[in-house]
């Protein structure tokens, strides 16, 4: 493996990180929105969200990516590989995040909510000051776990030609006919990315401990 090979795998790492970060930034709020629809039992959309979550959670990342990239153009929606990959990853992570947020919402103490109602807090204020600060702290481990799973499913987008870490390593191996060193290097890079994420979670948890229930 020459220097250029290391560089190409590192560039793949950049692609992985960018794809993961963007899909996480989009997927977490989207998941929250879906969870809120479920919690509020909005009449028609409730069912749609249930079906969406059930369908997407059982769909492999590879198949979903292939569907979005190759099949949507038949309906006039043609995406370049990178936006298609981001869309596929976001759709996938939003479904899982919905379940995580929903678990936190279901476990939210009803008495606090009732107290807020008794004080005639408007909706937005209720959410912003009472519900959100507590549920985001409670969902954090689940969300970070899902983020690491997201990062580990980014290799799925290699099937539409995006050169992320795994595909870059594969290419180097195909050229040199010595596949193991590039894969070992790729493993190290993935480990680094996941490590950074978990460390960040620990730091946040230490800074903002979960308040004991009154």
């Amino acid at each position, binding site marked *: 493996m020459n220097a*250029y090979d290391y560089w*190409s795998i590192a560039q793949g790492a950049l692609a992985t990180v960018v794809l993961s970060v963007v899909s996480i930034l*989009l997927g977490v*709020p*989207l998941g*929250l*929105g879906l969870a*809120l*629809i479920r*919690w*509020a*039992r*909005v009449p028609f*959309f409730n069912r749609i969200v249930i079906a969406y979550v059930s369908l997407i959670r059982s769909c492999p990342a590879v198949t979903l990516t292939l569907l979005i*990239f*190759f*099949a949507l*153009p*038949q309906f*006039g*929606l*043609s*995406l*370049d*590989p*990178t*936006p298609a990959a*981001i*869309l596929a990853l*976001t759709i996938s992570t*939003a479904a899982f995040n919905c379940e995580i947020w929903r678990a936190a919402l279901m476990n939210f103490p*009803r008495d606090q909510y*009732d107290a807020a*109602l008794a004080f005639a807090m408007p*909706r*937005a204020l*209720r*959410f912003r000051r009472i519900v959100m600060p507590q549920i985001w702290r409670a969902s954090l481990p689940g969300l970070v776990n899902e983020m690491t799973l997201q990062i580990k499913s980014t290799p799925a987008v290699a*099937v*539409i*030609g995006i050169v992320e870490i795994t595909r870059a390593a594969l*290419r180097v*191996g*195909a050229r040199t*006919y010595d*596949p193991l060193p590039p894969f070992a290097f790729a493993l190290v890079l993935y480990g680094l990315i996941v490590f950074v994420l978990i460390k960040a979670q620990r730091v946040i948890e230490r800074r903002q401990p979960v308040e004991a229930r009154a």
Partner: protein
Amino acid sequence: MSVRLTRSDRGPFKRRNVVTCLRAFALVAALGCVHGAHAGSAEDIKARGYLSVATEDDYNPFEFVEDGKNTGYDNDLLALVRKKIGVDVKQQVMPWSGILPGVTTGKYDMALTAVLVTDERKKIFDFASPTCESITYYATKKGSSIKTPDDLVGKVVGAETGSAMLADLKLFDEALKKKHGGNGIKQIIEYQSYPEAYQDLGLGRVDAVANTQISLNSLIKTRPDVFVIGQAIGKPTYIAWAVKKGNGDVLKMVDTALLELRKSGEMYQLQQKWLGASYKDMPQSVN
């Protein structure tokens, strides 16, 4: 929680949901690169300003990536065509299995890659002026017991998914079965791209790989100690760039450029450089 206590308890965060969802979708859409997929007529292309083409990512010697740059016969030819064609060309590099479906669904105007001209494909695509000739061969590992095409009976052979070489292989398998009383190739394995097939050939997971003779010769040149080329298992045909059937405008633009390159001899020079031979007797159109 299913009892509505007050009127304002209807559904706490409806507006927030909608806003969040809208924001999310806006972000995704704003990432741009969402455009209607319509194979363009000449006016569309002039309005758009570019021709969109798809090229395979790893198919030696026609198109492959070296040190980060797209190179190979087709890519060099594209560089020359760009100068003559008068519009910009936006090239998307991707695995083979998405290229032809991408042209049929209108995602790309043209498949600028090594597409073999077959009767099946002529029903769905129109081809530009051919870029070279091709016959499907098989290659084996050096020292293999396969010496003639008939020796492929009972062996495992690999080819690229959705390729004409795979179709040739399947036809050859039928012929083998007829000749040898029902015994044909033991198993045909479909790969996403040829480098993976060659690696498996080197490891011994497949006994032979079917590909165009040009590509196989290029493989043998890089690794003469490991691989050896066999014999033809398909009929001679041409390789050309493909557009959706009926897309005459794009065809005319590209054909003009290609025929100019033929007349000036530049195409034959490229053929000599990448393919090791020049094909001067090709017809002007294969449709």
